[in-house]
């Protein structure tokens, strides 16, 4: 059945998926009136394979896998325009974040670039507690050489202006937020996904 046909057939609403995507707001998610304010407000909509309005309907219908594989969720810049304008008060940007979480958890990420960047970032915060921009870019570029080529000229300019400083990775025994990260993972195991489910 095509998406379009399913959209008309509301008896297909799959509440279990809804509850997973929007644990504390799934009833609100059901109240979406498909007005399109979110898509109209979204600065990324023109690049999205599934624009926001359509995405929420697909979530309602339980077509979560299609949504999780979409490019759209990685194009969302978390600008909160849709979030503050939705006439139903659905917390849309947080919902988008939740979709990112699920896609990462299930390995359904359409954008290798995003995954590489997110991973480099998390590794560094865990290790140092603070972001070291130079090392972040170095790690990201190593895992994604094409992106590196694009950023090289700017990198030199920033070094020149003293904006970036060369920082060598501090390897020895640093794991500043290691215990906190481990504890978070442990708690998430105990209360899968969301404690207020």
């Amino acid at each position, binding site marked *: 059945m095509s998406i379009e046909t399913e959209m008309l057939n509301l008896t297909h609403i799959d509440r279990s998926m809804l509850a997973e995507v929007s644990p504390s707001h799934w009833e609100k998610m059901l109240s979406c009136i498909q007005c399109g304010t979110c898509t109209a407000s979204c600065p990324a909509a023109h690049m999205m394979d599934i624009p926001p309005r359509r995405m929420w309907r697909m979530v309602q219908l339980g077509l979560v896998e299609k949504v999780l594989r979409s490019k759209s969720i990685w194009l969302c810049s*978390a600008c909160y*325009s849709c979030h503050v304008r939705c006439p139903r008060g659905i917390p849309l940007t947080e919902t988008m974040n*939740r979709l990112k*979480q699920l896609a990462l958890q299930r390995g359904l990420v359409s954008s290798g670039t995003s995954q590489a960047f997110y991973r480099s970032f*998390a590794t560094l915060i865990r290790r140092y507690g603070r*972001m070291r921009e130079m090392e972040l870019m170095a790690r990201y570029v190593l895992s994604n050489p094409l992106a590196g080529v694009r950023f090289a000229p700017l990198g030199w300019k920033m070094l020149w202006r003293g904006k970036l400083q060369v920082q060598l990775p501090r390897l020895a025994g640093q794991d500043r937020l290691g215990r906190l990260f481990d504890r978070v993972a442990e708690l*998430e195991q105990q209360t899968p996904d969301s*404690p207020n489910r």
Partner: protein
Amino acid sequence: MKYLFYPGCSQEGTAREYRDSTLAVLQALGAELEELKDWTCCGASVASAASQLLGLVLPARNLALAEQQANGPDLLTSCSACYSNLRRTQTTLADHPKLHHTVNQALEVEQLCYRGVVRVRHLLDVLANDFGPQVLQTRVQNPLEGLRVAPYYGCQTVRPYSRFDNPHRPRSMLGILEALGVQVHRHLREAACCGASLLVTQPDLGLDMAAEVLAACQGADCIVTVCPMCHMNLDAYQDQISHRLGQRVQIPVLYLPQLIGLAFGLPEQTLGLSRHLTPVRLPAKIATTS
């Protein structure tokens, strides 16, 4: 006026001049600032995508530190991404007591506990409301008359957890700019997203969004921002953006405290204007303060 200061990661690196100019201006205004000891990253836009709990625990760690270090002063941040993360955490935990409890279970390993009493403030909020245009005006030594300035708030400064301005049509910079004597260049992208969070992973879209902001600001002598992410995005890529727009765009982007510093007659070295990638060339009359 006393504040605990949370600079955030980028102000230790690429945005050092934002921190320097913020400290200089607040000092000139007689504010007392103490840096939050042992602060760590708020998780930026990344942690909350990796895990809901991590996205709350990282900001909560800093909120808990603030409550431990000082009972009373507001926690001041000048980065809109940090501000949004700290405020999102406060709002979410206030609404979900169970989640609040789980966050504190995590913070136990750091011997910390977040109670939910500290107030989080954005630099713009403090400048506009704790001091306000009148107070700022009394400090102006070098009115920036004739300078056309385009205010740029960006998204997370005013949406959605912020309480000090209108999320659709913010106004808090207007009074400040008028107090400095500048002419305000109003435009339609004042609170639009500049796309900074996409710049690394989705550069084409990120640059398109920045291009729209820069195009809307054409005609101004400079843009003022209150976020290091917006600043980087608008300042650093003007060559590439000119290419995309098919027309030369070159417009200096200043941090609000840098502009205030110029009007206060603070030395240019303190304000770090030479660190920007788009050269800051202002009309001669204004730039000769140092």
